[in-house]
Structure formats: structure tokens, C-alpha cells
């Protein structure tokens, strides 16, 4: 499978190469795409490759960047974190790409970070993450914690919720996010006994982990749901869910079967977008909340145009093996797409593909792109300012937007900032 996909991606590369050769008069600029096209993360990350290729084609059709056509170099990280670092090295040292768009999991980002810093590359990172990071070589178009988890909690607090149960998959994003949330909730006057899931403290009594954690692929949620049911019996409770992938199905099935409903105890899920709903029985999720910088259901001219153009491109796409049926758009996809246009704007303003010059322009705070999710601005801290939306899940796997936070400034460093 891995080899086969390698072959596919090479074929895609060759094809893309041969296409650009026809118009190579004014030259091309190489751009890296670094996502897992095989392995466990392929389901999510392949969608990002698709939207990136679409963005490149869209830009090339309008004359490219600085008169040069974009030539994508697609490599497969294969859900293998050390391989991500090797592929990043290949992109930067062999292919000498001007910019790279890629990574999904925090661990893949952490493993390519040293490569990008050593070779002074530029990476655009599009997926919600835990913060506590600000590399000079990464532009985070992703949602920082204050652009996703915090607004979700604000919404629930405004809704009159007084008890919060934290549950997640056991890895860096849920652990860090929940620690930040714990501090935030305490600063909002929620007593510590109203935060469910359990606390783990180190020898000095400092909380090192808040909430309940299950491993990837966990299937038995009986005990945890029974605990939530007891937790929620006195009313005004909610759940902040950072469970990743597959395990959401047994969790929500158990949750629904135990008689808990979105009206009594809503679950705000931070890792479930429209793309994931394609393989979930959404019936069990109706009314539960999602929080992202983009929803497919956003009613705007830009979004309608984007969706129409992307689906049209998909239909006629010749990328081998691309999925054409039942496609949706979601926040990581749109933030990837925004990244391409933000980079284009910065390059055009700098008049050069040079990473240092592009970065200086990006950090000036003047690079904006009015995308499907509204206005994006790259701020001095390499993160983007953007709108944040809260949505309720509907039976058709879409979100109904119930609240919009306009132009939220990104704050990657949140730990220890509340209540002081």
C-alpha cells in the first residue's frame, strides 16, 4: 500500500511536472506539500493535499506568483513522524522549495521543526493545535487554543454551564489544551470540584494533567460515560471532547445510549470537523457543538465561490486515486487554502521568493486574505487573526452556526496567563 501510494504520488508529481513544462517559458517556482498520503492519518491529510493542489491550479490559471507558475512537489510523510523530518530535509535541500505547506499532527510538526529551523525553510501549518510554540520558520494559519477551545468554553459559560468534564485522547494536543482550559475555567470562578475527569498532580502538588484520557483506538467507554452521567445528574454540565478519530464513535454511541442528550449535557468536540463526519453516524451527534475557524455552512459569497470551484476542480481532477464522491470542505482544508494565498500575497509584496524577505513582510502585520472563512491577517507572532465560529451538529453532518467571534487575535502562549 505504501509503495503503491508512493508510486501514485510520484506519478502525480510527474504529471504536475509535465503540465507545468508546457508553460515553463517564464519559469516555475517549486512549492512543497508534506502530508501523510498513507497510514492512519491519510484519511484526514489527503483532503489537505487535494485542496492545496486545487489552490495551486487556481493561482496558475491566473498567471502564477510573480509571473512564475507553482510547481508542487508532493511528498508522503506516511503517518511516520521521523519520515516527516526526512521528507522535509529532501524538500528543503534537494528540491529547494520556496515554501512548504503541510503537517497535521503536532508530533509531525515537532519533528520537522528542527529541519526547517536549520535550513531556514518556511512552513505553513493549518490544523488546530495546542499553542506554546512560535517558530520563526512556521506560519500558523491554524487555530490557536484561544481561537478554538477558549471560545467554545466562553460559549458554554454564557449558556449557563457550571460543570465541565474534560476528556481526550492521550497525546500532546489534548493534554496541553486541557491544562490551559483548567487554568481558564478556574480563572472564571468554576470551582475545581466542578471540573470532571480527574486531576493528576506531581510530587509538589502541581497539576500536570487534567481530564480523562484514553489511548488512540480505545473502544470501551462504558465506565467513562457512567461517570459523566453521574457528573451531569445535577444539571448545567457539559463535556469538552478532544478525542481523536475512530474512538469518537463508541464514545458518542455510549453517550446517546445512556440517555444523555445535547440539551442536558452538550459535548463540544474540538477534533471533529465535517470531514470526520463522513465516517461517523451523525445521528448520535445531533445538537452537540463544534468550534472552528471555518464551517462549510458559512453563508458568504467567498465560501460559495470556493466550494463551487473546488468541487468543479475535483470533478475534472486527474490526480490519480483522488476521492471524488461525497466530498466536503472543513476548517483545516480552508486554512491550508488561506495559507497558499497569504504566502502569495507576501511574495508579491516582497517581490521575491527569498524566505527572509517573505517572512519580514509576513510579520509586518499587513498581509491579509479574504478567504472562505472571512478575513485572515498574519500577525507579528506568525499566527493569523481570523473569525471563530461555534456550530451545532446537524443530522446531515453539517454545522448550524450559532455564534461567531469576529477577528480573534491569536495567542499561542496561554499557560499561566489567566487570573494573574
Amino acid at each position, binding site marked *: 500500500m505504501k509503495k503503491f501510494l508512493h508510486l501514485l504520488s510520484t506519478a502525480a508529481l510527474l504529471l504536475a511536472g509535465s503540465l507545468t513544462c508546457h508553460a515553463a517559458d517564464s519559469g516555475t517556482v517549486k512549492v512543497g506539500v508534506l502530508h501523510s498520503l498513507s497510514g492512519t492519518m491519510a484519511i484526514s491529510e489527503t483532503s489537505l493535499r487535494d485542496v492545496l493542489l486545487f489552490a495551486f491550479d487556481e493561482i496558475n490559471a491566473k498567471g502564477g506568483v510573480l509571473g512564475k507558475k507553482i510547481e508542487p512537489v508532493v511528498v508522503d510523510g506516511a503517518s511516520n513522524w521521523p519520515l516527516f523530518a526526512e521528507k522535509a530535509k529532501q524538500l528543503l535541500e534537494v528540491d529547494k522549495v520556496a515554501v512548504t505547506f503541510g503537517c497535521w499532527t503536532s508530533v509531525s510538526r515537532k519533528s520537522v521543526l528542527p529541519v526547517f529551523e536549520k535550513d531556514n525553510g518556511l512552513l505553513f501549518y493549518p490544523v488546530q493545535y495546542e499553542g506554546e510554540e512560535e517558530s520563526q520558520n512556521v506560519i500558523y494559519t491554524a487555530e490557536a487554543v484561544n481561537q478554538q477551545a477558549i471560545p467554545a468554553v466562553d460559549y458554554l459559560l454564557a449558556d449557563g454551564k457550571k460543570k465541565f468534564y474534560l476528556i481526550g485522547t492521550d497525546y500532546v494536543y489534548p493534554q496541553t489544551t486541557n491544562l490551559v482550559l483548567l487554568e481558564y475555567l478556574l480563572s472564571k470562578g468554576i470551582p475545581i470540584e466542578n471540573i470532571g475527569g480527574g486531576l493528576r498532580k506531581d510530587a509538589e502538588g502541581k497539576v500536570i494533567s487534567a481530564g480523562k484520557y484514553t489511548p488512540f483506538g480505545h*473502544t470501551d467507554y462504558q*465506565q467513562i460515560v457512567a461517570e459523566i452521567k*453521574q457528573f451531569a*445528574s445535577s444539571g448545567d454540565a457539559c463535556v469538552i471532547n478532544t478525542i481523536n478519530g475512530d474512538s469518537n464513535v463508541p464514545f458518542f454511541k455510549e453517550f*446517546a445510549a445512556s440517555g444523555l442528550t445535547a440539551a442536558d449535557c452538550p459535548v463540544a468536540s474540538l477534533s471533529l470537523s465535517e470531514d470526520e463526519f463522513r465516517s461517523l453516524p451523525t445521528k448520535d451527534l445531533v445538537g452537540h457543538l463544534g468550534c472552528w475557524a471555518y464551517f462549510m455552512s458559512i453563508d458568504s459569497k467567498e465560501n460559495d465561490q470556493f466550494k463551487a470551484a473546488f468541487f468543479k476542480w475535483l470533478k475534472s481532477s486527474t490526480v490519480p486515486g483522488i476521492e471524488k464522491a461525497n466530498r466536503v470542505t472543513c476548517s483545516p482544508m480552508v486554512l491550508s487554502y488561506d495559507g497558499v494565498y497569504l504566502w502569495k500575497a507576501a511574495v508579491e509584496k516582497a517581490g521575491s521568493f527569498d524566505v527572509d524577505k517573505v517572512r519580514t513582510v509576513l510579520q509586518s502585520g499587513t498581509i491579509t486574505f479574504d478567504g472562505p472563512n472571512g478575513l485572515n491577517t498574519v500577525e507579528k507572532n506568525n499566527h493569523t487573526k481570523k473569525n471563530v465560529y461555534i456550530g451545532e451538529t446537524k443530522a446531515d453532518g453539517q454545522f448550524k452556526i*450559532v455564534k461567531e467571534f469576529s477577528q480573534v487575535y491569536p495567542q499561542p502562549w496561554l499557560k499561566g496567563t489567566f487570573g494573574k
Partner: protein
Amino acid sequence: MEGVGVLFARPLLCFCGFINEMRNSSVSVILRFLAVVFLATGTSAPAMDQYEQRARALFVEAVVAPESSQSLLLENLVGSAHPCLEPFLQGWQREQIFIYQSPEGSKIPILKVEENQSVRILRVDTGEELKEASGSLAAWNPEWKAVETNSKIRRSLKNTIDLLALGSSSPSDRAAAALKLGLKQSPASLPVLESRLSQETNPSAKAAFLDAIALVSLNSENPDQRTSALQRLGESASLPARDAIKRLADDSTQPPQVSRAAREALQTIDTRIFWIDFFGTVFRGISLGSVLLIVALGLAITFGLMGVINMAHGEIMIVGGYATFVVQCVFGNGLAFAPFGLSMNIPGFGFDPSSAIYQSYFLVALPVAFLSAAATGYVLERGVIRFLYRRPLESLLATWGASLVMQQLFRLIFGPANVPVASPEWINGSLNVEGVLMNYNRLFVIVFAAAVVFGTSLLLTKTPLGLLIRAVMQDRSMAGCMGVPTTKVNTLTFSFGCGLAGLAGAFLSQIGNIGPGTGQTYIVDAFMVVVLGGVGSLTGTVLSALGIGTLDQILQTTLRNPVIGKVLVLAGLIVFLQFKPSGLFSAKSRNLEES
């Protein structure tokens, strides 16, 4: 929604219609009483009509208002709520309220009621069916926009419905409504609760009303009232009240007798929680054990009896899961997929997902899952395993290869993502026995596992086929000498084992994922159960599955960590097998090779 027809046939007597529909005199008393409570005065029929009109008018006002003020208007409606509004409130919750623009330009809110194949359109303001200017019934127009809801509006709707639920015909609904009202601890709700209590006849609902009143009284100015409320809540060991009682117990400004009563009440509640957790854990242990049992049962046949190390067992289970998915799609709108680039389309019956016939898809899926998995097993046995009966190591490798091939086939046919299988309604929900929750799907798996084990053991011990199977499994060549068609029996036995795996897959689709890699998650568990139980022993398999399940759940609760249970069980298993390598129940054999 059947009540709606009656309701609107005679709008002026709507309230009475509602009562007739209930066909229950005690309910009519309650409703009449409610109307009195909510509407303050008036008992004669024409007067009620006036209140009904007012309630309808207020509701219409809320529906057509801008979204930001809808919730507030609904809150105001609470005081004038009228039972005739219930279907409309519920309709709005489900976004079935639409706005009809009359030719004169006024906005008329309507409720869409879908009955079997037909759609009825009811006016909110009169309760009658919507009519055209000509007087004929209006036809449904798909362009009408639904009045949207958000969580705030839904909460207001729920509040109003909850209040109406105080007069519900079901005692458990009345109890739940009372408790919800009590948890708000608002003194304003005391008169409603008290007068309602005096009418209540059902003992459990009565207890709930007493609890609710006690909850509200916890905020009373009078310390004696607080104490007696605490005593009441302690006696009934009310779980929902725990937080409120704890607040009082922790509050150092309370007089000593209140603090003492609060601590005592807290203690009774905590004792009750302990027992609920205890029995809950036992139940969850048995249910997890049953899942393990169902998963391992097929393997107990193919590995335990036949000695084939079938690494493709997980994938054969998933065949059953995918079969369930296909059956679900056939009952719904059909299924289109494109294996190997060929576009295929399985047509569906197009049943409505809420109809009883669609809900019963799972019952059809069970035999389909069994047969499709058995057929897969048949092909696997004929194609691969029959050549390898004397070479267990090779059969391990070959079946592992087969499992990889099958995973890839699933990917090619159904795509790399998991397929969504929705559980039928009747398997959702739970039974509450003294606070211990037993989910129907878990009860179902226990009964199902027991039935399958019973059936299998009957087949093996009481039928001629079972006799042949046991003979062949004990000594293949000797059975052959006695004239038993061993190849046929082998194939049948293996297919049967695989069919059981298919049943497991069908069941797993109700509690978890079905995807190309799902089988891998369960294969370790399945082998663990069979090996611990003792290869070849059905009783051993049952006991080891239940034992592992219960132990896992007990460790999970006591150590408050969802992972540690499994880790310790596996570690314990390794130690156990050091001392008893043939498992709990080992089959005695005089075979030199096996001893």
C-alpha cells in the same frame, strides 16, 4: 403526534380534545388543574378558550420575532403555557415550524406533520389545517423556510415543555420534570410543585415532587426548613441533589444543626453512590465480557476446536459488520460504491429512517451477517486452510496474508474511512434500576451472547452434526477411518465458526466502528479469551470472557484510569499462563503429541 389530529379537528375544544386523546380521567384532572395553576383563574370552558387563544398568540409572537428575542418571548410564555401548545413546542425543537406568507402578506407560522406518506400543515394560531383562499387544503411547499433554533431557544422550549410535562401522563416524565424544576432551586416554583404534589397519586412521582420541594427549600431563609429539607433528601438519597447539599455542608456560615444534617445527608448519598458504582461495574463487566465472548466464540470453534490459528478472524468479523452496513443502506436509500473502478449501485427500498420497518433492519442484518461471513469462511477454508491442517505455522502465515488481502479489499470496495452504521432506536436508551443504568444495547449483547453460546453448545452436543464435528476435531484420521466425511465436516465447522464471527461483527457495528482496520483491534482480545479459557473448551471461553471483562472494569473504577485495567489483565494473563499453560479448562487428551 397522533394527538394532533384530534387536537385540531375541533380547535375550540382543543383542550378537551387533548384530554379525550389521553383517555385517562386522572390525567384530565391533572391537566385541568395545570390549566388552573398556569392560568391563575377561570375554570369554565369558554374561559379556558380565552387562555388558549392567548397562549397561541404569545407563541406566534415568539415564532415570528427576530432570533435574538425569541428565547425571551418563550420564557415569558411559560406563565401562560397551555397543553395545546405541546405539539408546536416539540415541532419547533425539531425545526418543523415554518412560516407561511399569506397572499395578504401576513406571516402565518405553520407546523409540518408528516404522517406515513402524507404531509399535514397545521396553523399555529388556530390549530386548524392551513387552507388556500379557495378553501381547499394547502399543499406542502418545499420552499417554505423552517424557523431555526439554537441552543438557547431549544433550552427555552425545553423549559416550557418541562413545565407542561409536570402534567404528563407518564409518572416517570412527571418525576423527571419535577426534579428538573427543583434543581433550579427557584422559590417561584414552590407553589406549582406543592399544589401539584397534592394531586399526585403515583408513589415514585410523589417522591420526586417531595425531593424537588426539598431542593428548593435548601435555599430557604428558615434554618429549620433547611434541616428538614436535608433530612428528606438524605432519606431519599437523591443523587442530583448532591452538589447542592455539598455546598451547604461546606458552607461554614450555616448553623450547626444544618451543617450536621447536610453531612449526614451527604454520607447517605455517598453510600448509595458506592453501591450504584459497584453494581454498575459488575453490570459493565458482564457486558464487556459478553462482547469479548461474542468476539471470541467464533475463534473458540476455529482455533479452539479445529486448531487453525486463524489470523483473519478479525476481518471475517468485519465482513459481518459490512454486511450490516449494506443491509442498513438497502433499507434506506441504497448504496453506490466503486470497487476496482467499476461503478456499482445497490438499490434501496427507501424506507423512512423513523419507520418501524427501517428500525428492524438489524434483525435482518443478523442472518445476512452470519451467512456472508460463513461464505467467506467457506472460501477461505476451501482455498487456503484445507491444505494446511497439519502445518499450524504455515496456516498462521497464510491466514495473516489473507487478513491483509481482505483489509485491502474492504478499502477498495468501501473506501478507507469507517462506514457509519446507525443503531436502531429500540436498542438506544437505558433501563434505570435504583440508579444503576443498564443500556439496552448492553442488555441486548448479554442476552445475545447467552443465546449464541447456548445454541452452539446444543449444536455441538445434541445434534448428529455436532457428534461428527467433535469426532473429527478429536482425531481427524481416526474419524476418517470410521467413514466420517472429514473434509466436509472441516469445511462446515470452519464456516460455522466464521458465521459466529460475522454475528460478532454485526453486533460490534452497534457499539463501535466498522472500518478496514477494525478487525485488528479485536484479534488480540479474541485470542486472549480463548487461550485463557483453555483451547477446546466452550465453558472455559465463557468463564474467561466474563472474568476478563469484569476484572477490567473493576480495575478501571478502582484505579480511575481507563487504560490500566487492560494492562494489568494482560500482565496477569502472562503470569497465569506460566503456571497453567493450557488455560483454565484444558481438554484431557491421550494424544502423545499434545501432552
